[in-house]
């Protein structure tokens, strides 16, 4: 019986959650993303790696239309979420962002209490019927964000008063409180110590049970540890995309190899 289920899981075919085809992004005259094709699978962690300025954040922001808020940014190509074009005129970017959550490169807690920071998303989307339910949502999110023990006694303290690493975990908790289907994380661990990093990686692994996670990282070890798929970007182009194991052990492109062995970057 046990053996059977293990076999079943191994052959389980992952569904494609997001499908991106012929994507281009321009900032005014700068061509920041050039013809990128990526499939984000459901219940999978996808890592974006690449040297600084290669367009990882830019591409990530396309996935929940955050580029809409940047004056002068222009996005082309097709981005499908569950077979629906997210750039279609009928799609409300606000609804989309509730489904595709985001954790930013720099921690950005609101100047509100820790509780209100986490309750922010559930409140605007009306996820709780009463205070008790909200308390529950907040506690669960903070626990999953690996910060509950540090803040449970001071939920009324301002979120901006936390340390940088705590702020980042608070932002992660804030993002998962709305139960997104896809979670985009832009270098979530760049301000964290190794212990908190390990906790966040554990969280990512746990999130994989239900959601798909896209994570941008500069740490090769982290990409290798947490992700199943890896995409390597270079100068706005997607150089290589495939199974993490394969990218790290047997890359096809010489540029990928030199990057992960530390020769370009």
């Amino acid at each position: 019986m046990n053996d059977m289920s293990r076999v079943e899981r191994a052959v389980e075919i992952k569904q494609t959650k997001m499908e991106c085809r012929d994507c281009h992004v321009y900032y005014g005259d700068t061509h920041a993303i050039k013809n990128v094709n990526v499939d984000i699978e459901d219940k999978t962690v996808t890592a974006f790696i690449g040297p600084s300025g290669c367009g990882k954040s830019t591409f990530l922001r396309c996935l929940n239309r955050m580029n809409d808020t940047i004056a002068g940014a222009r996005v082309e190509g097709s981005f499908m979420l569950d077979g629906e074009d997210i750039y279609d005129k009928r799609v409300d970017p606000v609804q989309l962002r509730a489904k595709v959550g985001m954790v930013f490169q720099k921690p950005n807690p609101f100047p509100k209490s820790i509780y209100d920071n986490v309750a922010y998303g559930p409140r605007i989307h009306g996820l709780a019927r009463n205070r008790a339910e909200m308390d529950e949502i907040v506690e669960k999110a903070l626990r999953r964000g690996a910060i509950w023990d540090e803040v449970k006694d001071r939920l009324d303290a301002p979120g901006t008063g936390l340390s940088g690493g705590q702020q980042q975990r608070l932002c992660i908790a804030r993002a998962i409180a709305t139960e997104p289907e896809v979670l985009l994380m832009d270098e979530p661990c760049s301000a964290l110590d190794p212990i908190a990093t390990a906790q966040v990686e554990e969280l990512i692994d746990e999130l994989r049970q239900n959601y798909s996670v896209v994570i941008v990282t500069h740490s090769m070890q982290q990409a290798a540890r947490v992700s199943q798929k890896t995409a390597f970007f270079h100068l706005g182009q997607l150089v290589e995309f495939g199974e993490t194991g394969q990218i790290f052990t047997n890359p096809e492109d010489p540029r990928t190899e030199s990057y992960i062995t530390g020769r370009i970057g």
Partner: protein
Amino acid sequence: MPTLWLVLFLLLLSTLGFFAGRARALKSAGGDPRKLHSLPVYYGLNVALSGLVPALGVLAVWLLAQPMLIDTRVSSLLPEDSIPADLTRDLVMSDVRRVAEGLDIAVGQGALSEAEVGALKAGSSDIRARLGEVGVALGSDVRPEVLAAARSYRALSHTGTLVMAAVVAGLSLAGLAWSYARTHRDYRARNVVERGVLALLILAASLAILTTIGIVLSMLFETANFFGLHDWRDFFFGSTWAPNFRGDSELSILPLLWGTLYISLIALLVSVPIGLFAAIYLSEYAGKATRSFAKPLLEILAGIPTIVYGLFALLTVGPMLADIFGKGGALGVDWMAGATSVLTAGVVMGIMLIPFVSSLSDDIINAVPQSMRDGSLGLGATRSETVRSVVLPAALPGIVGAVLLAASRAIGETMIVVMGAGAIAKFSLNPLESMTTITTRIVSQLTGDTDFASPETLVAFALGLTLFVLTLGLNVLALYIVRKYREQYE
């Protein structure tokens, strides 16, 4: 006039010093500027500044001190019994100064020669008429003691000015010579000039502060005079503002304060919502094109002189309100007697304050980091939800500061209320009635025939001081709030 020539002379000297110093420095380096410690220009500046700054400093102090010293001196020469019973020593002294000044002018215009001045006799020659010919009007005939005092006054100032010119010129020359002698290729002219510049800046800053203190002190002085003549309890706690010249005026600030606050309140009710919403639109919604065109437009509104707003109140808003609320108006009610009312002035003042509120709020809203908005939008909030729940709360303390600054401007505004609010001091809740404010009463108490010894005139200073304290308090509060808010992000 001699002072102007003196300053010009100093400037000329230091210009010469500049070139001489620069030339000497270059020469000491054998004509190669690279061998100098500092750029050649610094050596020139060093010489020029040491010729100019100490001399100008002494000149300034001297100009302030000389009249005071001469005044005391001449005043002590006036015998006690030469002062008429109905005059004070100060008044006689001001006569003396006036005569002395008149004689100076007469001599300057050539109407009198020095010798003729010496020969003038108070009894026989008609000094008043002769000075009248050169444009100096005297209040009464010149008495012999006054003429004598005026003569010694002139003599003293003449000597004083001569000595001053000599001292200042000598100081300048000494400074020039001293720093010229020290000019050498290894001399650290650059550092010395740096210190000189610092001294200049400190001087400018302390002048600004000193004048403020001076203004406050003079107000305090006159206010103290006023309270010597009038009961302070009536001023602060009375209920009527009714100045007259029979000596039983009721001069209470309360009705005026009420008018001031009422009009300011209406102005804020108009300007804060409109200004704030305009700022939110401009900073959160408007595209680059709209912004680049709407913002300067709003700022033009801020540049309109308040007297023009006053005309607007008088000619447009007032009659319009009267057409609505007045007799035979659109509403068919008779609530408004004339065009001037609290509402007229308040609305126009509100319009005046819109750009003030909006540009301050715009700055404050823009100071909220973009990452806050990203965080909120990234959680699926709409733009207005983001503005309401993240941007405005974060900017709130700053906005409160902006509102307080606007309030202090409203309280101090004069022209619009003079023209729009009327001149009746009273307590009333009806915004369609005329009322008056502290500022307009200050103007009216000080214009026309004024006698600086009567409480009706001096009350203006007490009013002014109260106004000053009020706006100062608001400004300090606003700055405190704004500063506290800044700490959050920096």
